[in-house]
């Protein structure tokens, strides 16, 4: 290893000892770096995983408007602001949903996203069908699958009526893993 550190007349065992000392300090150095990196990594991992830590806080009740805006027997597009949003979200925190008022205070509020792969389904009142423009998913007016590849009916938001306003519990993009509601739907009139 190094010649200078042994000041001329050093013996072989002394050198070996010296080398092992340096090896030891290399290990100490590595260990210290390991500790420092671990100390840094912990907050970094926490930072990176922050979107999934707050999962429970995502859903909140939002107002869709007065009941009068939704005539009985019709399905209409409603818009709401996502409960969690930032000023730099632009138009993206403005979300649509389909509101079907069956009668009185009985509603179905469907997510816009097709249960197949999330494309926006469109309501056709004449034929009473929701059609998806991407892969041909079609749903009946009650959200059950009529045709195409969707593995389940349209996602539904839980709703309640408060002071003459329709409220839904919304907050996350509905997919098969992050459903709008945990309530399992019974299969009504298939085919």
């Amino acid at each position, binding site marked *: 290893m190094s010649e200078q550190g042994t000041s001329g007349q050093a013996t072989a065992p002394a050198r070996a000892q010296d080398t092992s000392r340096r090896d030891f300090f290399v290990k100490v150095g590595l260990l210290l770096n390991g500790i420092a990196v671990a100390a840094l990594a912990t907050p970094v991992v926490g930072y*990176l*995983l922050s*979107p*999934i830590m707050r*999962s429970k806080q*995502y859903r909140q009740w939002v107002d869709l408007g007065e009941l009068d805006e939704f005539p009985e027997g019709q399905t209409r*597009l409603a*818009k709401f602001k*996502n409960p*969690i*949003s*930032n*000023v*730099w*979200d*632009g*138009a*993206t*925190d*403005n*979300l*649509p949903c389909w509101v079907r008022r069956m009668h009185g205070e009985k509603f179905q509020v469907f997510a*816009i*996203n097709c249960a*197949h*792969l*999330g*494309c*926006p*389904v*469109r309501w*056709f009142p*004449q*034929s*009473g*069908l929701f*059609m*998806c*423009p*991407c*892969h*041909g998913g*079609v749903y*009946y007016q009650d959200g059950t699958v*009529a*045709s*195409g*590849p*969707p*593995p389940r009916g349209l996602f539904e938001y839980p709703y309640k009526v408060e002071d003459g306003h329709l409220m839904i519990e919304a*907050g*996350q*993009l509905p*997919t*098969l*893993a*992050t459903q709008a509601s945990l309530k399992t739907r019974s299969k009504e*009139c298939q*085919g």
Partner: protein
Amino acid sequence: MSRLAKIGDWFEQRLKIEPVLKETMGHPVPRQSASWFYVFGSAALTVFMLQIFTGIMLALIYVPSAGQAWDSLQYLNHGVPLGWLLRGVHGWGSNFMVAIVLIHMVQVALFGAYKFPRELTWIVGVFLLLMTLGMAFTGQVLRFDQDAYWGLGIGASICGRVPFIGAWVVHLLLGGPIIAGDTLSRFFALHVFVIPGLLIGFVSLHLLMVLKLGINEWPMPGRIVRRSTYLQQYSEMTHKDGMPFVPGAVWKDLIFAAIIIASVLVCAAVFGPYGPSGQPDPTIVQTVPKPDFFFQWLYALLALLPPQMETPALLIGPVIALGFLILLPFFAGEGEKSWKRRPIAVVTILLTAVSWGELTHLATYTPWSPVMDAWSGDPVPVQYLKGRSPLEREGSAVFQEKQCRNCHSIGGSGGQRGPALDSVAVRMTHAQLVRQVVQGGGNMPAYGKQLNPAEVAALVSFLDTLHPPNQPQARDAARQLSSQDERPKPEIAPVAAQK
């Protein structure tokens, strides 16, 4: 000594780079490998550098904010002088890059270049392909328009199919609960910092190995690769029948690189930049999202796979494909290199190419999707209305009004989700048509709740008229027998009577 040479010497004394440059430029290549077939790797590198350059140019203006990205793209297109051209070059450059990387990969596979000792070069190349596709997808997201927004929705929905941790994956992908500002920011970081950084590192490694191991020799049928003898054979080949890379082979790379850059420029100037399409506002639901060219095969596959196979195909398929590509040089690391003696390799590549081409072709006209405005946009052909009864004409109105046209074409226009109905009366009897309309089935919704009996009667009487003039309408054979009452056969007549 001239002043220039003195300056050169000054740098050389400090950098000591001359031997490295000489070794790099002068590394011997087999004479036959100095071929036009070997230009795609350097072409991919050329386009990559073009992408880095134009990407930096675009970043001078682009605003990675969900609220303003779309406006900044419009500003680039219309407000900044020649901004449209730079966007065009970057967009077309990405198309060229994906295409050239794929061609390079096919060439390398056909020429057996992944065999010993270039296994790691191939594996690094597989990761380079993944990163190229990653750049293509994240770049499509940065063009933050309707297609980007709903493309993210599709990406999230695919992640949502991951068992157990699906919700986590969705939230990690989106950077939050919905597609919003944080989503664009993280895709910006991926597209501009993370993946390009990895790409530069992996490209360097890839190139280093090409230099250290030498370029693949031209494959000859019968020249077998063996681990024990290959290195010596290759060394002999390059020394006996080789030439230095510069200028022996490099001129073809240079000429092809210039052609590619010129082609990208011409495409950008003639066809212009990609989008942006509509604003990324999810409340605009009148949209038909579609991925960019290089992902359309996947889009088609997801429409055509049986539903129960989708999740396995989405989650296991890529693992199998990637595993196959990575392991390829290990189970086929020796043996014949020539495509003339490797029929399975040739057939596999052809099959993949044909499937990819056909899926992409299908995605250009999406026969599986309802045509959303066919019912209000496409007229019923006049010949289907001429001389028809009022009930039949009323039926054609029902046909349009109830959006049957969105999935069924007549007269060549309308959806292709269901069968064309121009000759449906030849295939189905009156009773079968009524049943099909009311109950649906065979992937068709049931319309029983949406049509009253009068509408069903009108619609089916219209459908009954849809047959060529020289072909009769389909009839129920049993009913025909019983009504005509000709030579009643004892074994058939009772059955017919029951009906």
